[in-house]
């Protein structure tokens, strides 16, 4: 399983951090720091995997952002790369040519997307389109509730596209 997902800027600033195992806040900060030093120091041409403590770090750099996942030893590293890429593609589609600034200012949306993609450290949806659809439907729902066009009763019986 994926133990954590980190998005770090080139300066090591956290843009997104999701933890799927029980780790105290203090420990999280420590891990983030250590992972940042390990990953950011690696030259571009090296492979995308690093052995780190009892887990493997799979990372990929997209423009100025490092997408980092900590996975179990026996996990498929190549597939983890593919999951990261899928996340990036969904983000790209959602924001329309995503850049770091999008993620800085809409970090919560990035989290929402990630939550539709991964659950409990496992991939939950293999179709990018399905993820986008879900996020869109939920955004719409939020808009409607905010605009007041969906009342409480309507809201209760509201049901979006299935699957």
């Amino acid at each position, binding site marked *: 399983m994926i133990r954590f997902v980190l998005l770090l800027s080139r300066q090591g600033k956290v843009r997104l951090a*999701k933890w799927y195992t029980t780790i105290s806040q203090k420990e999280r*900060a420590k891990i983030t720091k250590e992972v940042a030093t390990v990953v950011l120091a690696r030259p571009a041409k090296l492979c995308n995997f690093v052995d780190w403590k009892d887990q493997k770090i799979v990372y990929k750099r997209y423009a100025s952002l490092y997408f980092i996942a900590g996975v179990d030893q026996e996990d498929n590293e190549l597939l983890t790369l593919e999951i990261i890429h899928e996340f990036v593609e969904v983000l790209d589609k959602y924001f329309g040519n995503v850049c770091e600034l999008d993620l800085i200012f809409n970090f919560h949306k990035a989290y*929402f997307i990630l939550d539709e993609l991964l659950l409990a450290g496992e*991939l*939950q949806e293999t*179709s990018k389109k399905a993820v986008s659809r879900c996020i869109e439907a*939920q955004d719409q729902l939020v808009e409607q509730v905010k605009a007041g066009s969906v009342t409480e009763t309507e809201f209760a019986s509201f049901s*979006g596209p*299935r699957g």
Partner: protein
Amino acid sequence: MSAALMLRRQHLRISAEMHVPSESFGGVSPERRAARSLQSFFTFVAARIVLSQLEGIGRSDLGSYNAAASTTLRRFLLDEPMRDPADWLARLMQENEMLGARILEVRAAYAVEDFEWDNLKRLAIEGLEADNTALLRQHATKHFTVMMDKAGSEERLPSTQHYSNLEPWPSAMPPTAYFLFASDHRAAAKAELEAQAGAKSGVAQVAKLIGAKWSALSDEEKEVYKQRAQQLKEAAAAEVAAEQQQQQQQCPDGEAAAEGLQAAGGGAAPPPFGVPTGLVKKIMLVDDEVQRMSADAVRAIAKATELFVQQLAVRALQHAQAAKRKNFKAPDVAHLAGRDRVGHLAATMTQRMQRHRNRKAASGRNRRRQQRQARDTSQPSLTPPDLSRSAHQIHECNCVAQRISQSMSLAAGRMLRRQMCLLPAAALRHRPVPLPAARSISASAAQQVAPETSSSEAGDKQGKPATARRQRVLSGVQPTGSLHLGNYLGAIRNWVKLQEEYDTFFCVVDLHAITMPHEPRALLDATRSSAALYIACGIDPAKASIFVQSHVPAHTELAWLLSCITPIGWLRKMIQFKEKSKKAGAEEVGTGLLTYPVLMASDILLYQTDLVPVGEDQRQHLELARDVAERTNYLPRRWAASTRACSSARVMSLQDGTSKMSKSAESDLSRINLLDPTDAIVQKVKRAKTDAFEGLEWDNPERPEARNLLTIYQCVTGLSREEVLADVGGMRWGDFKPRLADALVAHLQPIQQRYAEVMRDEGALDAILAQGADAAAVEAYATLDNISLGRGGMTLRLRDLIKQVRQCKTAAEERNVVAKEGAALRQAFKEQDGTYRHRNVAKLMYIHMLGYPTHFGQMETLKLIASNGYPDKRVGYLGLMILLDERQEVLMLVTNSLKNDLNSRNQYTVGLALCALGNICSAEMARDLGPEVERLLVSPNPYLRKKAALCASRVLRKCPEMLDSFLEKAPRLLDDRSHSVLLAGATLMLDICAQEPAAAGYYRSHVPVLCRILRSLIMAGFAPDYDVGGINDPFLQVSLLRLLRVLGHGNAEASDAMSDVLAQVATNTDSARNPGNAILYECVQTIMAVESIGGLRVLAVNILGRFLANKDNNIRYVALNTLSRVVGVDAAAVQRHRATIVECVKDADISIRRRALELVYALVSEGNIRTLAQELLDYLRLCDPEFKPDLANKVCQLVQRYAPDKRWYIDSLLQVLVQAGAYVRDDACRALLLVVVNAAQLHGYAVRAAYRALSAGLDSAQPSLLLVATWCLGEYGELLVGPGSAQLLEGEAPLQVGQADVVGMLEAVLQLPNATVPVREYALTALAKLVPRLPASSERAKQLVAAYRHSSQVEVQTRSVEYSRLFAYPAIEPQVLEHIPPVEETAYDATLEPSEAAAAAGAAAASSASAAADLAALLGLDAGMAAAAPPQPVAAGKPAFGAAAPSGVDALADLLAGGDLLGGPAAGQPAPAPYSAAAAAALAPAAAADPLADLFGPPAPVAAPAAASQGATITAFAKGPLTVTFQLAKQPGSPSQTDIVATYSNSGGASLEGFTLQAAVPKAMQLRLEPATATAVPAYSSGGVSQRLHVTNSLHGQKALVMRLRISYSLGGQQVLEQAEVTTFPPGY
């Protein structure tokens, strides 16, 4: 004394006191003067006292009647004047000495003790004040009496009759500055005023104005006035003179009174109109009587001033008109004056004061002045009667003014109070106030209006709007130009409908109108006429609030607040601004045009408007209003969110069917104004643009004009589209136009009639507008009051916070920003306001991400989750997952919300809850909510099924007892059509198998299903939804492969079932892209892990070969990774890729290097070790430091394991030590030395190699190399120089070394700056050893050893002292320092382990942990060597040692550990082992710091613990052939620790193979097991195998030792597992 006193006085004067001139007191200070008077007073009093005493009055007890003395004194008092008391007393004493003395005595006593100084002060001050008051009152009475008389009234105020009785102004009389003073005595006062004009600035102004007027007069006029003034002046002077005379006659003490006045007024009596308010106030404060009088006076002054200033204003207006000053808008003023109704003022003011709401009231200076005066009047307490009285007065004042105005020109007369309102804006702000007598248009309206006002006032007082309200509508039209048909049909007609359903506010937006150039007078007229048109069009003032925007100042107030938060960029984007500013020219355009959307936003937000019926062109402004409201957090979200535009018919220009009918269009022909006369309408319709098509039609895009005219027709006739078409569709333009014109006229005529009616009664219209403004103001100010600017409620938006943080240049700045925001958030959380909770939590998440503490907001996330709205829940759950983890107790609180949400009918809400549960659920939550997840696992909704399945994984992990419930449900997910559910199902099954391996067996039956799914994935064509790089859903494929691996592992049948599909995957997957490789990678792993056939494995290994050759580092990495897993299964397959793998060790990427190194390690054998090791050694030199530890240790291990011969071993290890000495582990060094010791023929070679290594790089040598090399030099140094040195081995370079060189080398080692303590110890030992062997340099060696006697390093010093001491005994020296004998390797290994462990145990007990460990390292060698040494005679003192320590080996370990090893493996040898003196010398200081001499005395104390530690022996276990006995021992000084030697005996005839003993102790104890000496217990053996156990009992003395044993061995191929509990430990253990 006097000098000092003077100084003090001066000082006092300078600092604070009032300056009192002393010259009037005869050159001395007034106090001195007074003191002197007091002196006289005291003397006189004393004399009187003595006199009365002598007469005996009242003091009969003290003195008898002394007639003679009393007579003398009485006479003296009468005769002698007491001018100077001293002189008087002197004379008295001449006459009667006793009397004088008595008076002196009494005088002193009285002055000091009896005189009441405080009382004097109080009396003096009281008296002064009383006098002051009396004088002032006198003055005021006289003064005001005079003044009142002069003001022309016979009656005294407060009678108001006087003003109403004022004679009407004679219209024939020309206006003059003196008009005020109709009667003669008034004129006199005026004359005096003129005389004073220079002194008072206000009056000076008056005079100046009068002067200006004067100069404007013609000469004849001037002459007339001059004469008249002269007359008046003379008359006045005469009158004043007569009056003064009269006054003087009336009051005899007039002079004194005049003086008093002088003192109070500071000059001559002030003239009647010159009384400054300040002075009046001062007088008023004195007492009630004066107050009452002066109150009247002020009113009188106010009145007079009022009249005077009004007159001046008229003059000013006339003057301005004459001068035609540029910026003076006479029409504005005139208009305003016209609207302003006399008498409003008083009523308004009373109202306002009662409300206590002085909201920048629109009022001229005059009114304010009156207000102030009214307030002055009613001081000190403001009571309603006072107010109404003063208001009434002012009302009267207005009546006077009205009468004046009637007699003057109309414009000027109406101008009365408006002289300050010269600016249009200020004029606009004034709004009319309903007249009590105002009539309204309809009776019903009037009835409606009154209660509305009262209710609005009631609401106002409460300060909050009514709670339940209808939806609100706000709209307005600019009063520019006249309203036209477009306005009417598009907006106003629509409002008429709206007013029935909504609370409506319709305003004339005059503030918007002034953003463009305008004619003020026309604007004012248009404003009124617009309002009138509203009414005429059918808006009922009873239902809707009709008002003028500028009458409610709250609009501009809120607009300012909003403009402060509106980015200028937003405003510049407004299309209307762009268009209008382009038209007007960018430089000339007013700021108002830019900010006018903000004003519009404030209009909307002020009334919490729900609906804004405006045209399409205003949509952008509405959006802006919404955005602006979003930016503020003091406006509830709802208002802005629900504000929307609505619009009805869109009427186009008559001249152009594509542009809308506009007021600002140049041609009047393009629009039909509502007020156009009939013929104009007919004319305009006639000239409307048309086209050449036949007939009329609605929807032809090429005929916008037709559509427009039809729309107009439809609207005014009220027909439907079809009816219109049927009616006129067939007509030509020529027929239709008159018809349209008729319809229009018919429709507009009633409106125009009503308009005329409304306009006829201006007062009524004003009343309606005032009522509307009042109603609007109540709402508007309620909103403004709600704005929490003052309460600091303005917090940042999330975006702004992020921006702020990003702008921080330093960490400190960022901390500041976050700290500030954190404080704001805490405050917000404290206030419990839910409106911005979601935003606050989002900010909290951001702050959390920056790494700051956010625990204070955790509860907020829970509140969000508990809320009803989805948006809040969404943020809440996100916050929960980010801000909390499962360890926090707060999490428990969310369980109930989660349960509710899991049962929600909205799938997304359920999804959120599942996601949160899956990511952070704790064991308790898993238990509580597991059933819900289980239910959702079979939900009909795949979106929920997949989430539930993954959630179940987490639940299982947290709560394994849920396994049974999920075990059966999981495979059902495999029947799903949705990929994501399949994936989740496979994941869940994998997790279950990981949790409970037995489940794999249960799931094996599903292998065919899995294979089918996998096959269909491979075979299916392109699936757009799931395609990743040309591969169909690699995620699902990988997951299935992994599940197959788990299911097929160790099961041939299942493996067989899947072999086909595995082969398909392996051959059909495209390896060009990453997803394909991911699948192949997984597939290879599966093939290798399951029981697959050979062919398949070959396929897999070939794939790996391809991977390995790949240029992509990622692929190579996974290839190596897989190979290292495969190597155990199929080493030969891996062996083929050896060259590639070795290359990979040198890869630039550490991840690949590590993997490759592991592989190399796995691949090395005796056959290839030389080449491989050489490669690695070469690389060791080059590789980067972070990789060296790994590599060095791996090389060491390889060399130790596979070394073909000892020379190569020594060479390779030395090389490693040279290259990476710092990373080589100690045991590798020891193993090297062991090899050297045991290879007798290589001693010389080894020492030469060591010498070479040292001399090649002494400075860079690491401690491990130094240790090894110095040890070699010490042991075999003589071989370097002796005859042996010539015997070089093959391929060895010759070496020329002298004895001095060897010692010199050791000296250099000793002196290395980075030499550690062990290195120095080793060097000293080496030098000591070389002393007997290198006779030529022995003295030098001894000196070197002795030189370290004073070393600061204790161990080094000890060594030095010991060896120096040893040299004193030449007899034992050679034996002690002889060569180490060869050691048996296995025995060495066996002893090495326990001694190391013992050293570790001893470390805990020893005071100096590091020293002990170092020593242990040193002794470990010696111990091993000593153990195997042949028996040798030992010098004197040996028996003592022998007795103390039966075994050399054990004794060493023993003493180090301080424990007991009796009965250990070595203890089995009964004979006392030979004992090396060198070892003893080394160990002595460790045990006891005695000087060496003690060693040779009686049995050393070190022996004691060994003897004392002989403990009990118990039989722990006896079953079958096996018996286990425990020999227990305690360490002295640490009773909690028990060392146990377990001895295994086998009474059976077959050996017990694979023997293992496991032991467990209760929690309070700690157990450490050492490996047993052998894994097999031979047949018929007793004590042959032993094992050590160390137990530490933290509850020693409270709890006895208990142990549970688990013993397993195989007897004759059969596995035996035994368990036993050992409770028979003797007491004390």
